């Protein structure tokens, strides 16, 4: 099979989902690296490309990573400290791990509020439950601190949220 973009043999085959449609892609290593599909390819392919890119440009694979959605490069992030799109957190997840832990003093997971709405219904139940457990945790802490005013507000929020959850949960 030949590469979709040039006539060299295609070594990377994968399916991309864009706008709800799936698209078969067959690329040679060079075109795959150039178009930023590297990180979506299979792990062994990644490793292969890693060697390829290193040999070709003298850069490590890490620096050659590109977000397929926004075109952000890891090196660009290192220069500016700003990411290009929400997807970058997944695209650069390996590289970002250390950055996040460093900036957030070791924290790795969000435990705060969740978005108000505009999520799928099944997610919404999950989110409300997460929100509920957060509020309950905060309530315990508030009571420990004897912040009764805060506790009262939290209790009201819990009541409202519990009423909004489907029965029997």
């Amino acid at each position, binding site marked *: 099979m030949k590469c979709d973009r040039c006539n060299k043999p295609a070594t990377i085959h994968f399916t991309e989902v864009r706008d709800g449609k799936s698209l078969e892609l067959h690329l040679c290593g060079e075109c795959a690296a150039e178009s930023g599909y590297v990180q979506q390819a299979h792990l062994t392919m990644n490793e292969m490309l890693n060697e390829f890119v290193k040999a070709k440009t003298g850069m490590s694979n890490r620096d050659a990573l590109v977000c397929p*959605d*926004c*075109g*952000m490069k890891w090196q660009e992030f290192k220069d*500016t*400290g*700003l*990411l*290009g*799109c*929400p997807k*970058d*957190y997944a695209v650069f997840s390996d590289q*970002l791990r250390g*950055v*996040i832990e460093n*900036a*957030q*003093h*070791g*924290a*790795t*997971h*969000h*435990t*705060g*509020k*969740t*978005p*108000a*709405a*505009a*999520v799928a219904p099944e997610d919404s139940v999950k989110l409300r439950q*997460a929100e509920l457990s*957060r509020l309950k*945790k*905060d309530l315990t*802490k*508030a009571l420990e*601190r004897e*912040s009764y005013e*805060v506790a009262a*507000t*939290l209790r009201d929020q819990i009541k409202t949220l519990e009423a909004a959850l489907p029965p029997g949960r």
Partner: protein
Amino acid sequence: MNPQIQKLLGKNGEWLASTGPESAVVVSSRVRLARNLADFPFMTKAGRSQRAELHRLCREQLLSMPSPRPFFYIDMEKTDQVDRQLMVERHLISKQHASGDGSRGVAVSDDEAFSIMVNEEDHIRLQVIRSGLQLRECWREADTLDNALGQHLRYAFSDRFGFLTACPTNLGTGMRVSVMLHLPALKLTGEIEKVFVAAKDMHLAVRGLFGEGTEAIGDFYQISNQTTLGRSEEEILAEFADVILPRLIAAELSARSVLEQERPLMLDDKIGRAVGLLRNARLLSSEEALFGLSHLRLGVAMGRVANLTMPTINRIFLTTQPGHFQRTLGQPLDGDARKAARASYVRQLMTPSGG
């Protein structure tokens, strides 16, 4: 000049109202939330048309959301340089938002208690300010506004990382809690360095009057949380409001009483010189004015200055800032002419009942 901004000028605005709790030391409290829309790139990668579309979408949602107080919307591209500077001085927008370019705007409540920047570093930067120490009140309203906006805007959010932000330092809650503190006594007793060290140990950032990258002028320090991930909003607030701030306030107040008891002459000398400077200077820079106002504020807070009130000091504080002063003058003046005009303006305000 934008007529909406003009309307603000007669007042001191919320952050300089000096009516809140602990206002002898805490000038203002602020809670800021960073949000981004899921279906757009962050600002760094948003092209012209995406920026415009983002702006349009956010503006539309803002204008139709149920708001706890009336507000207006300002298109930054249609706002002149002086108006932008005015908004920075009133802490309604960041320096970055004022000097940036491209399609962007800000929603400001009539009483200046909240402002919501669109297309700053993140798509949405929502802030609530209150006079004095009122962090929980700020959070409550920020939470309400955030929920109102989040009803119709799909935020970029992940279960693991929470709200996704352009810079990983804002990740998670996207919440920055900050207070503007006036710490002149700690400076005079030479203990301010200890505060900085302690703040660093507690993972807090210390900045100047106008936030990031600005110096601490006139003993005003903005202190804020550095980490946004791993703790809930309430946990961040609780640590800040119940642990850190009481200590800082107690330290400043104890330094004030030490000065009062052990070095009253030095204290009154500093205050007296500030009064002298502001009442008698013929050429006054805005930094000199701030420096004098800091000691004057200390004197008023400690009841050691007669015939002057906190609102008057705040009025001078705000109206001598470059942007405000230029509006007062009505024309651009340079160098000594500007300093002379400022000196005469301050002299007038410092004189009780215009005599």
